[in-house]
């Protein structure tokens, strides 16, 4: 049984399903102050308001007290304190640590030093497993199942950590993938190799209109300017990967659009009122999923 949540790969299929089931329970009854005696440290070495508020709300709804910092700017960290020393100090006060850090692998390292459980709330572009679990929860909730779905992932498939973790997690459930990305942001070979080894079907396209009508899930990601060396190339790609309402005409009725947020140009505002839009509900599911993760690591 996992004591920490660092990478989605640390959770077995059974553990993933267990968390999703608990999350459904918390959605039905979100106020369950079962950890009134616990202190949760929320330590964010780089700011991420969205993730931090979601975790802190989850901890508060479980009755736990929250301590921590929301960016490293005014802490001893800027004075050159090592991750090790910060973790040693914080674990003296807290029963669980939620940590966000720009260095990749920092959460794994923290979990090896910390005597209390650690949840990775994002380590650079590596892993962000609570996001993956809330994506899975959203998929299961909207589709009624996780098995045998057609998942179309769109945008930055090269650097997008949510994409990589989600494809690893979905691999337990016999999906079919379509990867829609510009040449510069194609899915790296190591992930294609990962899928081939597991006999999971996938195709690739550069054209966003290609797979919309087959998809059960359209998983949109942000195409970030800083990923491009060529500014003109960014401008071109940015407009090609923009979803608008007229493109959804042939979509299956059950199809839902997910996006880890914040969005920029990838989804036009006219999509928001469509029955297919699910990205705002998806964010709300984050609190229930994080309540489930905290509960699992405490028990």
């Amino acid at each position, binding site marked *: 049984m996992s004591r920490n949540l660092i990478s989605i790969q640390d959770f077995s299929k059974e553990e993933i399903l267990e968390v999703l089931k608990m999350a459904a329970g918390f959605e039905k009854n979100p106020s369950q102050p079962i950890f009134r005696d616990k202190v949760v440290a929320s330590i964010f070495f780089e700011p991420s308001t969205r993730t931090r508020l979601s975790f802190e709300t989850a901890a508060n709804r479980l009755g736990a007290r929250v301590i921590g910092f929301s960016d490293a700017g005014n802490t001893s960290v800027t004075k050159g304190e090592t*991750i090790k020393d910060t973790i040693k100090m914080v674990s003296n006060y807290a029963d669980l640590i939620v940590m966000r*850090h*720009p260095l*990749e*692998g*920092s959460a*794994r390292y923290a979990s090896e030093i910390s005597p209390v459980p650690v949840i990775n709330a994002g380590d650079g*572009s590596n892993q962000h497993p609570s996001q993956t679990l809330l994506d899975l929860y959203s998929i299961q909730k909207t589709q009624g199942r996780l098995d045998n779905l057609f998942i179309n992932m769109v945008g930055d498939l090269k650097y997008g950590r949510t994409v990589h973790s989600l494809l690893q997690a979905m691999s337990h459930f016999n999906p079919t993938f379509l990867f829609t990305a510009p040449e510069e942001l194609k899915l790296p070979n*190591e992930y294609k*190799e990962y899928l081939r080894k597991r006999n999971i079907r996938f195709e690739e396209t550069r054209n966003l209109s290609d797979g919309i009508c087959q998809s059960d899930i359209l998983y949109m990601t942000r195409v970030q300017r800083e990923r491009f060396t060529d500014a003109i190339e960014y401008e071109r790609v940015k407009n090609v990967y923009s979803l608008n309402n007229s493109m959804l005409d042939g979509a299956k009725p059950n199809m839902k659009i997910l996006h880890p947020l914040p969005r920029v140009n990838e989804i036009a505002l006219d999509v928001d009122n469509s029955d297919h839009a699910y990205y705002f509900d998806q964010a709300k599911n984050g609190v229930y999923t994080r309540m489930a993760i905290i509960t699992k690591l405490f028990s």
Partner: protein
Amino acid sequence: MQMEKHLKVSAIKNGTVLDHIPAEQLFKVIDILGLSCISNQITFGTNLDSKLLGKKAIIKISDRYFESDEINRIALIAPQAKINIIQNFKVVEKRVLSIPSSIKGIAKCMNPVCVTNHQPIETLFTTITDENELKLLCHYCEKITDKENLKIISNN
């Protein structure tokens, strides 16, 4: 010819001879095994002709024997190396290297934003052999370092 070969391999009385090291990896092997910090007699030759490698190097260490775990660490850069155990001028045992399943502290992670490149942490990798090529999967950042980008951390 036979005589020359014989001399190259076993001209120490007791100890270990490491043969078939790619010539360009000689100093890295010395580094990984920490040979520059021990007081044993060591001789080495490099740029010797080799059918297998083109140019090879050879290291002879008197009165020093290695545990498998210790010697297997050089499999990273000299996978075809042969280990000869010498006693009384004779080869009494020949060993080949096997690639260890994990590698601790020898290699550097190629990911510039990996935590191991910024904090005082010993690196740790799982080895993957993919189409006969050895790759290292970082335990921390989960990124792969391939042979082309492999950098050895000095032991000194």
